[in-house]
């Protein structure tokens, strides 16, 4: 009381003294100006905030636009129609129709023959070589398959659509312009005029590019696909999930429900929080040292990738699962215990099922992170150039983000659109997973 009283006395004394203030004139011009200034500052501040959000959204839009505009064309592919003579002398000289013989035949020669026939005035060796670039080196495999399926083609002449080479594909899609200087583009004037004559005769067509979804990696952009990487990602994520989900949930249950509050538990908790913030590349170094150098597991295998990513996702899952378990009200536990359930039964029959939607949401988000992760996988050798589709988790493989990284590094112009298209596929998967997480949260969210 005395404090307050003395304070008031001080105040009164202060105002009594020299600065005996006049009552404020709230209508004065000074005050009006001040208020105006303050409101202007208010509006500016609000505008900064809005600008910041719009800036971030603009960045998002630009990111999306640059990827879609670069990549949408990768979903179609240029095809060339040629009149191919299935010459029996080349395919099957002895007339045995033996698949082994047909399989070994030189189908490339048939395509070259067809191209020479289409452009009879091309004679010199170097010109011919430029001409052959119109058709992709993968077209011969298509022809082989076609003949294997239907041997009666041998001896006939058919108009066949063949996959075009990547430079001509780029030309057809408008990425190579005839207006640029001849020396600074990958196709010279002759090649462009040949292609023009093919276009004029209606022998050029763009088709949906199924190979992009079904092939493995390739040095030829027009043959490269994402299926190999997608399968690799699947195996890697499967291993990650199998390991990190049960371990993470068990750890979360223990820490939340059973652990005594002692120093050790505290250390574990601090540890988990710190692990969640360790740079992912450090996990890659751990994987390299532990799994490859100490355990001698196979390099580049999805198993090793999954083991590495499991350690990385574990903290995410543990933190999410603990939050979900904590959200289950204690009354549920008390009711179960009161009816004679043991602590383990209480958790496994009541707490865990109620916490499951939250745990699953956290797990899906952790898996989405793992799906987009690249750096640790580079450390354990998942960057190899792998054409084959992996058959098991022990085979050498690569994953989608690493495939994107590898393609982004390739010099060919055609790989730019492949990279963007692969990014679109990866983002589609991520949106799907996050959408599922949001759906689960919305559907099973419970307010107690």
């Amino acid at each position: 009381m005395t404090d307050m009283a003395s304070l008031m006395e001080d105040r009164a004394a202060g105002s009594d003294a020299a600065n005996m203030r006049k009552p404020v004139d709230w209508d004065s011009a000074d005050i009006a100006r001040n208020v105006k200034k303050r409101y202007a500052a208010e509006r500016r501040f609000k505008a900064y905030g809005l600008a910041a959000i719009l800036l971030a959204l603009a960045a998002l839009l630009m990111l999306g636009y640059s990827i879609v505009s670069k990549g949408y064309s990768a979903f179609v592919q240029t095809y060339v129609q040629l009149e191919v003579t299935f010459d029996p002398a080349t395919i099957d000289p002895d007339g045995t129709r033996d698949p082994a013989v047909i399989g070994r035949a030189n189908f490339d020669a048939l395509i070259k023959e067809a191209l020479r026939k289409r452009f009879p005035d091309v004679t010199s060796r170097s010109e011919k070589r430029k001409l052959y670039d119109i058709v992709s080196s993968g077209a011969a495999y298509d022809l082989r398959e076609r003949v294997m399926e239907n041997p009666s083609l041998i001896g006939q002449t058919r108009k066949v659509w063949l996959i075009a080479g990547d430079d001509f594909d780029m030309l057809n899609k408008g990425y190579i312009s005839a207006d640029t200087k001849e020396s600074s583009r990958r196709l010279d004037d002759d090649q462009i005029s040949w292609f023009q004559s093919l276009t004029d005769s209606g022998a050029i067509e763009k088709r949906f590019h199924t190979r992009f979804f079904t092939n493995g990696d390739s040095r030829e952009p027009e043959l490269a696909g994402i299926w190999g990487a997608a399968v690799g990602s699947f195996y890697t994520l499967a291993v990650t999930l199998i390991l990190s989900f049960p371990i993470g949930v068990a750890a979360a249950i223990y820490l939340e429900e059973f652990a005594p509050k002692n120093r050790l538990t505290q250390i574990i908790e601090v540890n988990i929080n710190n692990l969640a913030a360790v740079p992912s590349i450090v996990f890659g170094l751990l994987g390299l040292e532990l799994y490859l150098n100490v355990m001698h597991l196979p390099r580049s295998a999805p198993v090793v990738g999954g083991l590495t990513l499991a350690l990385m996702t574990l903290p995410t899952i543990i933190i999410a699962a603990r939050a979900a378990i904590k959200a289950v009200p204690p009354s549920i536990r008390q009711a179960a215990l009161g009816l004679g359930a043991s602590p383990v039964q209480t958790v496994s029959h009541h707490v865990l099922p109620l916490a499951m939607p939250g745990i699953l949401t956290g797990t899906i988000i952790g898996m989405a992170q793992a799906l987009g992760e690249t750096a640790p996988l580079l450390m354990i050798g998942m960057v190899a150039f792998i054409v084959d589709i992996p058959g098991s988790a022990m085979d050498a493989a690569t994953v989608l983000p690493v495939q994107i990284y590898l393609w982004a590094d390739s010099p060919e112009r055609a790989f730019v659109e492949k990279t963007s298209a692969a990014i679109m596929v990866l983002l589609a998967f991520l949106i799907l997973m996050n959408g599922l997480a949001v759906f689960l949260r919305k559907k099973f969210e419970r307010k107690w």
Partner: protein
Amino acid sequence: MSLTFLLLGIALLSALSFVFGRQRAIALSGGRYSNLHSLPVHYGTYTALWCGLPALALLFVWYALQGSVVQALIISDLPADITSDPGKLSLALNAISLIAADNAAHLDVAPEVVEAGQRLATLHTISNIALIVVLLSVALLGLALSYRRIFADMRARNNVERIVRYLMIGCSAIAILSTLGIVFSLLFEALHFFSKISPVDFLFGLEWSPQTAIRADQVASEGAFGMIPLFAGTLLITFIAMLVAVPVGLFSAIYMGEYASSTFRAWAKPALEILAGVPTVVYGFFAALTVAPFLRDSGAVLGLSVSSESALAAGLVMGIMIIPFVSSLSDDVMSQVPQALRDGSYGLGATKSETIRLVIFPAALPGIVGAILLAVSRAIGETMIVVMAAGLAANLTANPLNAVTTVTVQIVTLLVGDQEFDSAKTLSAFALGLVLFLVTLGLNVFALKVVQKYREKYD
């Protein structure tokens, strides 16, 4: 022998044990479960756990050790002139594994190596057969022993729950084990590195060019392993990223939390979170193929020479990546400031922005500083953006238009491709990793300390 097959086999045996254990308990109860101490399920689980767990543990130990044991056996049989030279040895081991996989029809190698390759193949077969035999006997032994221990008054539930508890403790311990694993694996290789290069040269050297002579007779210099330029590059890019992320992130958090209508919030917040969910490799592509050429071209218009791998491009894009991180953390902190403080400020006639700047912001400052420190630690450890958009040459410069390299870029370049674990070049990556780990760990711990120490307590 495929791992999946073995795992399925163990699962099947455990399922069978479960059935056996449960049947025996039911038989012992004579139809009245109250004669038993626990429910029949518990007896079943008891036998299943005793059958499956030891076998599973054995399987993992076997797989973890098999590689090194077999390799040691193979090496011990090779002649000394191969084993004494690490280069030759790794070549020979490669050839041996190719031969063992029947994949080396036209490989020109010494007869000892061919012999070793065949021996490796036999060893693999022996190991696989032995594994199956041992696994089967362990599983069956577990089943038999636990089955014989089942009596009506056996405390099966307590037993099972104790095992479950130990399993959960084991799972929690994995968190500690992986930290220890990180520390030891980095430390082990880093010490290896420091036995070749002095730590003083590494920590304070001003030059980084990790080329060492491949053959002993080469004239190539020793290579320089000074990490200062790498760290300077990392800090430069991090600084640029923070220049973008901190103001934008903070202001968007403020607008989201204090100004935005709930409909705007409902749309804008998830949109910002998308930025956080985009994989870093996508940002790297964006930085390298869109932002960097754009900066170079606009630099050319202004008469500036901008490197096509400029620190600016990598930093800007990294900043965009970190915006949602800063914004969501500071949003959390600012929304924890109690309403009473705001009401008090409004009651005194302050405008909204004055309240935010003079009341909420100071109250939330420790949390915001913590958030920024976490963001810095994230930027320092970020890898893919800089690998794709920043350079490889270690320039010691503060000019954001030049190319710089970072710690993470160097780790990736040193370790991608073939590695020899006896050269300073490869080992230096682990030393860099150790420094990176310690720095980010230090930042995180410091951030938590700041938040805890200076947090205002409101009641």
